[in-house]
């Protein structure tokens, strides 16, 4: 749920990175954090286990510039990808404005991708959201790995609603910012559409 504060002249938006365990959601945020100038970002919070697996969420606040004199602030969250953290995943989707679904391109993660995609739709429904109405895009991560499935196959399996999708190698940063820009733009355009009564 976006939050517009006229006093602080801010538009706040919540973006969530969703996907199966170890697909690179946290790595996306870490890369964004490293490459963003200090005045445009806040502190990155990672609630992780001792083995650096996300336990609850990662959080990164970003300022992307001004529109009509209002600062646009994006709050980026990741969910814990491991199957048994479903209760936490559901909590983080609350009030979401846009979703990046990060898929793991490796052949052996095909089922995990599909399971996570279905889980996301289910959790959205639990919050009363319909995936077709939620701005979302798909990122095919780990394109550099030898067992990466051709993008076309991943697209056919996961891109159910023909939304914009991006190839990525989050460890090197390839595709990370194009993904972020695309979802941020899509969310703002969706808010505009809502304001126009559409």
């Amino acid at each position, binding site marked *: *749920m*976006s*939050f*517009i*504060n*006229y*006093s*602080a002249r801010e*538009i*706040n938006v*919540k973006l969530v990175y969703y996907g199966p365990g170890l697909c690179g959601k946290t790595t996306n945020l870490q890369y964004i954090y490293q490459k963003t100038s200090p005045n445009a970002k*806040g*502190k990155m*919070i990672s*609630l992780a286990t001792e083995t650096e697996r996300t336990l*609850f*969420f990662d*959080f990164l*606040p970003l300022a*992307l*510039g*001004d*529109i*009509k004199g*209002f600062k*646009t602030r994006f*709050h980026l969250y990741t969910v814990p990808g491991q199957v048994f953290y479903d*209760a*936490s995943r559901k*909590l983080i989707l*609350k*009030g*979401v*404005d846009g979703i990046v679904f990060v898929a793991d391109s490796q052949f052996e993660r095909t089922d995990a991708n599909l399971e996570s995609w279905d889980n996301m739709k289910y959790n959205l429904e639990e*919050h*009363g*959201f319909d995936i077709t*109405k*939620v701005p979302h895009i798909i990122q095919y991560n780990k394109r550099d790995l030898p067992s990466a499935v051709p993008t076309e196959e991943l697209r056919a399996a996961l891109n159910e609603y023909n939304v914009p999708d991006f190839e990525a190698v989050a460890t090197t940063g390839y595709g990370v910012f194009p993904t972020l*820009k695309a979802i*941020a*733009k899509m969310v*703002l*355009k969706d*808010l*505009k559409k*809502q*304001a*126009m*009564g559409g």
Partner: protein
Amino acid sequence: MLASQTVLYEEEHKQITEICENLVTEAHAKLVFLVDKNGQLIAVAGDSENMDTTSLATLAAGNIAATGGLAKLIGEEEFSILFHEGSRDNLHLSLVAQKLIVVVVFDHRSTVGLVRLRVKKATTRLTEILDEMEKKRKGDQGNPLFAEITDDDIDNLFND
């Protein structure tokens, strides 16, 4: 369309901040902040210098969300008050009208009893303001600010 957005106008922000400021004084607190359940910071009062209020807001909301999840598992609707005791500072979190979270940071100069009492009073006033806001927003289609924003404005934001 997603859940309706929260819009806070200057006058409302002023009223809410005033309540938080009074709460700081009356509860002998160090800091009071108001967060929505999604982790958006709404207002801050007290000594917030050197304090990462954005992170505090996010974690407070996460804390309330996780505790709410626990409550449901044992058949409770929600735990409306949380208290964390530290060696120096303490945190008191409570829900307002199931929508907002009041977070009070206090030390030895106050007590949990006093904080609880003052928060209760502030909650009543905040609930009234929220009700008024809801009445005003009833029937609003979307925020006029977004109606004024053009696609070019949005595209320009992302030009390198």
